[in-house]
């Protein structure tokens, strides 16, 4: 029962969020959809960072590749020349539907993560942080200027906006189930062993490198998939999948609690809720008779401060890194 709740808890919360999002007005509904897409991205981060204990600043690269894959392949052929004049011939001619584009985005994200991970997974700690950051910079630099594979500096306009509340919810559930199955599998357990005690794990014959590579590949695939969801939500450009998104998604994971799936989901939803509230407040809202009108930019200040405070006072995050369990088992 308690084990099942580790998966059921996050899923129930996602379904509830999706149901709530489908009954509110469409303007408010966008906040719910964005929150659910954030859940997918943060779950991707959790699969690697949570299980391995290695910080990666590079995962938004794989989100960006997912955005590019799904975006380029679903822009209607008649519009391609207008927004992507430099596009290579076969991409010019190929157009796929919504669902295949999401799978291809996951595939590209996963392959890219394995290719990047092959050399990079030897690194730990600070070196891994800097190297993955370098990956983010390279990806952004290439996507921004190499217009044979995408719109370069342009927006991904006229991508079909298929990510409604339904697609976002199912996508988040898929990401959560994949992360849960991985964490329960032999691979997930071995990777967490290397996180807890590298020396003992190595003595027991566990290859930290191989286990990290598996997690990196899987989380890259989930990140690519989330990127596909994201580009079907709104017209993105290369700046939208760069430093700011890296910051906000890492903040979500840290605030929720890095080492648990529950933490990833709670962090993503809690920060999204705060973000949506503050975004409304920046436009001015009426609450309890008074009007709140915050200057724009307040929300990132609030999130940055929250992230710093959580790191200083509660390093385990809101969930203290624990999974969702119904019964109190220990102590």
């Amino acid at each position, binding site marked *: 029962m308690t084990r099942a709740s580790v998966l059921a808890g996050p899923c129930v919360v996602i379904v509830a969020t999706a149901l709530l999002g489908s009954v509110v007005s469409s303007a408010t509904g966008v906040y719910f959809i964005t929150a659910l897409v954030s859940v997918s991205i943060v779950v991707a981060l959790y699969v690697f960072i949570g299980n391995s204990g290695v910080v990666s600043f590079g995962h938004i690269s794989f989100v960006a590749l997912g955005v590019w894959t799904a975006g380029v392949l679903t822009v209607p052929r008649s519009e391609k020349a207008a927004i992507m004049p430099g596009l290579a011939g076969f991409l010019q001619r190929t157009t796929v539907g919504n669902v295949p584009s999401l799978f291809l985005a996951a595939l590209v994200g996963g392959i890219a993560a394995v290719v990047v991970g092959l050399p990079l997974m030897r690194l730990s700690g*600070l070196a891994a942080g800097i190297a993955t*950051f370098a*990956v983010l910079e390279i990806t952004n630099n290439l996507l921004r200027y190499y217009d044979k594979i995408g719109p370069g500096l342009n927006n991904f306009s006229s991508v079909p906006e298929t990510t409604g509340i339904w697609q976002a919810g199912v996508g988040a559930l898929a990401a959560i189930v994949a992360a849960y199955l991985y964490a329960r599998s032999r691979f997930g357990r071995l990777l967490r062993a290397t996180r807890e005690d590298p020396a003992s794990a190595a003595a027991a014959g566990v290859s930290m490198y191989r286990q990290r590579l598996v997690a990196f590949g899987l989380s890259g695939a989930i990140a690519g998939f989330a990127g596909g969801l994201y580009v079907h939500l709104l017209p993105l450009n290369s700046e939208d999948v760069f430093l700011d998104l890296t910051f906000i998604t890492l903040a979500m994971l840290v605030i929720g609690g890095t080492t648990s799936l529950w933490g990833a989901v709670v962090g993503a939803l809690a920060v999204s809720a705060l973000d949506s509230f503050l975004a409304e407040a920046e436009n001015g809202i009426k609450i309890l008779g008074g009007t709140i009108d915050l200057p724009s930019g307040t929300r990132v200040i609030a999130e940055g401060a929250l992230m710093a405070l959580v790191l200083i006072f509660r390093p385990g995050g809101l969930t203290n890194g624990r999974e969702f369990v119904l019964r109190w088992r220990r102590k």
Partner: protein
Amino acid sequence: MIAFFLTVDWQTLADALALGGIYALMAIGIGLVFGVLRLVNFAYGQLVMAGAFALALGSQWNWPTWLSIVLCFAVVLALSFLLDRFVFRPLRTQSPAVMLVATFAVAFLLQNIAQVWFGSLGKIATSLAPLNQPWAIFGVDIRKISIVAIAVTIVCLALLQLLLTRTSVGLHMRAASQDFETARLLGVKANRVIAFAVLISGALAAVVAVMLTTQNPLVTPDFALQDTIVVLAGVVLGGLNRPIPATLGGFSIGFAIGLLGGALPTNQSQYLPSFIFAAVILVLLVRPDGLFVRRSAAARL
């Protein structure tokens, strides 16, 4: 290859040297704090940005230039002190990666405070603009700021060398970056030596703010953000733990960017960041235990 060097004129060369010098100072600022704290201060660029906004405000209020510079130093040093007291000190016992994430958060926090305060269009700092005029040396026009930047870099490096080798607090700092625990056992006061390193690093950030603002008077909230990222890369290339390699790393990456960025046509120089960061990854891989990890710590496992 020869054709490439023919396209490099003296101004480009002087600019590249100046950029290298500025990046070298930033590299030392980051390296000093890393030495005593094992902390990569991602928010270093935002210290520079705060100093630059101080200069911009000074020129908006028509303050004399020296007073603006004093304000710049005061703001950056105060911010450094607050960072040390309220962020670095509580986080000191956490792992380096957690501290990196924390300074990442602080960086975004400061950047967005600047955005709310000053707007994303930024402000213009004009008081130092005369330094941007060219100087004719041996019939070659070179901007004054390039010369000033090179000179200031050399003076700062010399002062720092004196500080680190001839004063007791410098000795403490070097001892702490070698082995913090043993240094503490021998009577080095941890809080004092860390605060001192953070403040020196802040003073360097203020110097960098003055010079970058002169070169580029438009101060925006993301001022010096890309510079910091590039300097971090350079510091990794050089070796973060040792002051001289870190400085050289910062200098060479600035020099390379200045030279290549000035000489290459745009359709090639736009991919420069990719090559630089690929080089960073390569260096990290060739030295797998990292230029970051203390050898003693790596050997223990």
